[in-house]
Every structure is written in structure tokens, then in C-alpha cells.
């Protein structure tokens, strides 16, 4: 039983937590609308006037617009690929018995535990020798492979939980294995697909290490790389307001995804915990 005291204590902790998360974000937004002088002189004050030109500068001069487009292409492509492959793999592993089923499944699960740092150097040579260094498709393939184990692991549990009888009903209604998957089972797995899709989107959007190693072409930089480059170069020119503006632009899509899909994200976190 929760008493009033623990309830209020809980709220105090949660309020503190919320402040911890929200305040830096709010501060960054405010700073992106100030001049550099304001940022240094009175870091906590509100801006005298809203300087949207910081945003325009970041978008154009610092190429944040281009980085955003690059990121959308790479993350979007990887997302489509990994969801398709992941759903097919997870479905087969979850619902069909065949020799090697468990080996494949546990290999994928082990892939989830494997630290990506250890794979960076060999991965660089593989991608280089394939001639895909600094290309969209090279990065898309690596991203997809990177996200596949978690996707399969998550959807495997989801497909397991779907009632067998519905698939059987589909077979009796005239479905082949393929059409039963696409017409019946996949739509039923939609909540799981949305959850894992959002997780993948957020994870890949924030990816920095992989593009740092595999994507050396400044024209193809993704946002995380672009921001890092911006931080380095602007550091000397001390255009902090532009840096903050770029940061906020990079955060916005992720923030939008959280706001739009927060219900799915929450249900995704607890999926499989209770049937």
C-alpha cells in the first residue's frame, strides 16, 4: 500500500528528475535565441529579443539542413530495411520449427551483447573494401545490421505471444504462408512494430560512432557528425548561439517522435512483461 507520505516523496523525486531533464533542454532552447554576448553575460536571463537568425545561420552556413537530409536518408533507409528483415526473421524464428532455429536466434541475441567498439576496425576494412565508405547505402547496410539483433529479439517475443489459431484461421481461409504473414500476422503485430520502430529510429538518429568511422565525406555527414564538427570549428569562432540552434534543430525530430508516440514507447517498454 502506498501511503500519502511515500506518494508525496515519490512526486518530489519525480519533479526533481523532470527538472533535471527539462531545464538543460529549456536552457539550450533559450540560448539558441540569444546573442553570444547575452549567453556569456547573463546565462540565465531570458533573451532580449528572439534571434531566429541563429537558426537560419545554423541551417545554411553550418549545413545543418544538409546533415538533416543525410540523416533522414540514412536512418529512413536503414529503418525500412531493418523492420522488413527483422519482422520476417523474427516471425520465422518464432513460429516455425526447423533445425538451427535456436542457433540462429541465440546468435542474434549474442549480437545484441557484442560491443560495437570491438567491431569498428574490421568493419571499417570490410566497408572500405566493398567500396562503400562514405556512401548512403554503405551506412544504411551497417545501420540495419546494427539494429537487427534487437529488432528480432523484440519482435520474436511479440510474434510468440500472438494466438496461433488466428494464423491457422488464415490458412484455412486460403492464405499461403506469405500472405498469412503480411495480411494477418504483421497487422496484428503493429503495436510491436511501432514500438521497435521508434526505438530503432531514436537509436539510429543518435548514432555517432559508426558514421564517425565509416562516413568520412563531409558532404554526407549525418547530424551527430555535423554537430560535432560545428562544435569544433565554432569553438574557435565562438558562435555558441549558432551551435545551440543547430543542436535544437537536431533534437526536434526526436522530440517530435517522443511526443507523437509516447504511448507506444511506454507500452513498448513493458511489452511482454504481462500478457
Amino acid at each position, binding site marked *: 500500500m502506498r501511503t500519502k507520505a511515500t506518494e508525496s516523496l515519490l512526486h518530489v523525486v519525480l519533479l526533481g528528475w523532470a527538472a533535471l531533464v527539462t531545464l538543460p533542454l529549456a536552457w539550450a532552447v533559450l540560448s539558441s535565441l540569444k546573442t553570444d554576448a547575452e549567453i556569456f553575460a547573463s546565462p540565465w536571463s531570458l533573451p532580449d529579443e528572439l534571434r531566429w537568425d541563429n537558426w537560419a545561420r545554423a541551417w545554411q552556413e553550418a549545413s545543418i539542413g544538409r546533415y538533416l537530409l543525410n540523416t533522414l536518408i540514412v536512418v529512413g533507409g536503414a529503418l525500412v530495411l531493418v523492420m522488413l528483415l527483422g519482422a520476417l526473421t523474427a516471425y520465422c524464428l518464432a513460429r516455425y520449427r526447423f533445425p538451427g532455429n535456436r542457433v540462429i536466434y541465440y546468435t542474434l541475441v549474442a549480437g545484441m551483447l557484442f560491443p560495437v567498439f570491438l567491431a569498428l576496425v574490421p568493419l571499417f576494412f570490410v566497408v572500405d573494401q566493398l567500396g562503400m565508405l562514405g556512401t548512403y547505402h554503405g551506412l544504411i547496410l551497417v545501420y540495419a545490421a546494427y539494429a537487427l539483433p534487437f529488432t528480432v529479439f523484440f519482435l520474436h517475443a511479440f510474434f510468440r505471444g500472438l*494466438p496461433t*489459431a*488466428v494464423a*491457422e*484461421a*488464415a*490458412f*484455412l*481461409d*486460403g*492464405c*499461403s504462408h506469405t*500472405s498469412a504473414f503480411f*495480411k*494477418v500476422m504483421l*497487422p*496484428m503485430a*503493429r503495436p510491436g512494430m511501432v514500438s521497435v520502430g521508434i526505438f530503432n529510429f531514436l537509436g539510429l538518429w543518435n548514432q555517432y560512432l559508426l558514421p564517425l568511422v565509416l562516413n568520412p565525406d563531409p558532404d554526407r555527414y549525418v547530424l551527430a557528425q555535423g554537430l560535432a564538427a560545428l562544435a569544433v570549428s565554432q569553438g574557435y569562432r565562438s558562435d555558441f548561439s549558432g551551435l545551440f540552434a543547430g543542436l535544437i534543430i537536431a533534437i526536434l525530430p526526436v522530440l517530435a517522435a517522443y511526443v507523437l508516440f509516447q504511448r507506444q514507447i511506454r507500452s513498448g517498454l513493458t511489452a511482454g512483461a504481462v500478457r
Partner: protein
Amino acid sequence: MATVTYSGATRIYPGSEKPAVDKLDIEIQDGEFLVLVGPSGCGKSTSLRMLAGLEEVDEGSIYINDTDVSNLPPKSRDIAMVFQNYALYPHMSVFDNMAFALKLRRMPKADIKQRVEDAAKLLDLSDYLGRKPKALSGGQRQRVAMGRAIVREPQVFLMDEPLSNLDAKLRVQTRSQIASLQKRLGITTVYVTHDQIEAMTMGHRIAVMKDGLLQQCDTPRTLYEKPGNTFVAGFIGSPAMNLKTVSLTEAGALFGDVTLPLSREVRDAATQDGGDQQVTVGFRPEHCKLGAEGSGGIPVEVDLVEELGSEAYVYGHAAYNDSSERFVVRTESAHVPRLSETVYVVPEPGHEHVFHASTGQRLN
């Protein structure tokens, strides 16, 4: 319109020695309503799923009409199935659930609409065609599952305990609806249940199964009047038949001091095949009377009386041959004995069922 034939059909689950269904032979006539009944784990559902193509046929074959369907995928068998939990497509509306199979067959849209609406009317679902399954009650979901089968106009209907998720009253109501619907459509139907009352009331014929083996397949009346072995005798009828294994004498079966006379042929048959001077005799609760002391009945001490209004069941025990045997007798509610009273149970002559003591096969 189709006949269905199980010919030595056997299913052995992987990792198991014992067949779940063992050499099943049943011939189902065109338009017949056959009920597969038995306790859980008897293989009745497996038999149905073999016919559906959801389980493999390891030995023997299954024919629909003259086609061996044993190795055909489910979609090529032209059968429709109603599942125990209905297995509706949760992401589709009621209309789409029913239309799904027809759409897969690329039937013209107007025809699909016509058929679905006809079925919906028949099942009183017309107002719910736009709803998703989760917005329906249990009974409505059950009817959607029926509708999904009906619109297909399949060769064979399969039903796997379709009523077990309904409450008691709705179950009785839906039971008669399904039976009359089947009569009207005239489509060969195989129906699985563990409920012998469902089986008795719905089936043209009933196949009783136990441990993967077919025990008896006959009309409800024959199963009731002439059960082929002790299992069927005990399974069909509620409350269950009084089945007692007792000593066999020159005169008949000996219940303590009371002898139930048996004919010469029956007595001879009972002694064959290691009968060991024993015989199993059964009589139904409704086929015995409560007599007075000295009426030649078996003395039974009353433990419990169930009053059902129109009648009453008297449960009691009789002590003979060093053991205590339980008996059930149906009686008119006007003459209900008191608890602990001793009553005398007199089986009605001509209604006794006699079985071999070791093989359990019927002798009379």
C-alpha cells in the same frame, strides 16, 4: 456437398511414442452432423485438425469425397473452421473478417457484399458489420466466427468446441441455432466437444474417443441404449450409469445378497477370455426404482439427494463384498427418501447393460 472418410488415420506427435490418434476409421455421409466427443486428451481435436490440414497425417489417409487430402495444404481443402477462441482477425471489421476468404479468392466485390450481408442477416449481425471484434460480446464474436465459415460455402464445416467460451444459457441457445443452421445449409459438419450433452443434442452420429482410439460411432440413441463398452456406457448419460463389477453365479450377477438374473448366453460370454467369474453390470439412474424392504432390491444408504424440481437424484452407497459401492437413482420428487435412510434399488428388467469384466466389451 461432400463425404469425409478417415481411413486408418494416425497422428504421432514428434517426441512421443504413443499416437495421439490411432488408426481412426470413420465414414461421414454427405450433409451429416458428426460429433467427436471424449475426455480431454482423447485425440478428438487432433482428429479434427488432421482433417483441417493443421496436423500431419502420419499413417493412413483422409478423404474428402474421393480425393485424398492427407498431404494437401489447408487452403486447398475447401473447409471452414470455427475455433474455440474464435480466432477472429482483430485488426479487421466484422465485415472484413467474413469477407477475407472471399477476397483472397478474388470474388467480385458485389458478390462478396451480397454473401456477407446474407450471412450477417442470418446470424443477426447486420448492425455490427463495421465493428472490430474487440467491440463485440462473446456471443457476437462466436456468431462472427460462424459467419466467416458460412460465407465460404465450404465442402465441410469444422467446429472445435465453439460453445465452450459462452455462458451456460447462451450455450444452450446457440447449440440449437447451430444445429438448425446446419440442417438448413446441409453442409457436412464435424464438431468437437467434451460435453456429452452437446454431443447428444446436436449430432446425427457421435464418435466417442478415448486415448486416441475410437470407442464407438453411432446415433445418440444407440449410444445411450446400447453402449459398446464400459467407457461409452460411463461417458454417455448424466448422471453417469451405475457400473459395477460383481461376482458371476449360475443365476446371474450377484450384488451382495441380491442376484440380478442374466441369460445363459450372456453368462457363457462373460466367462470367456479370462472373465474370472466376474461380470460388469450397468444400469442407468433413470432405469431403476426404489422399492420397499423385501422387494429384492439392492440395499443402499442415502448420502445425498439432489432435487431438480421435476425429479430428484438419490446418491447413496451399498456395502457388499467388503467394499462400498456408490449408486445413483432417479426418482420422482414426490417420494424423496431422507438422508441415511436405507432404500432398495431395483433395476428395471430389460434395461441392464452387461459387459465383460476384463475386456469391457458389451455382452447383451
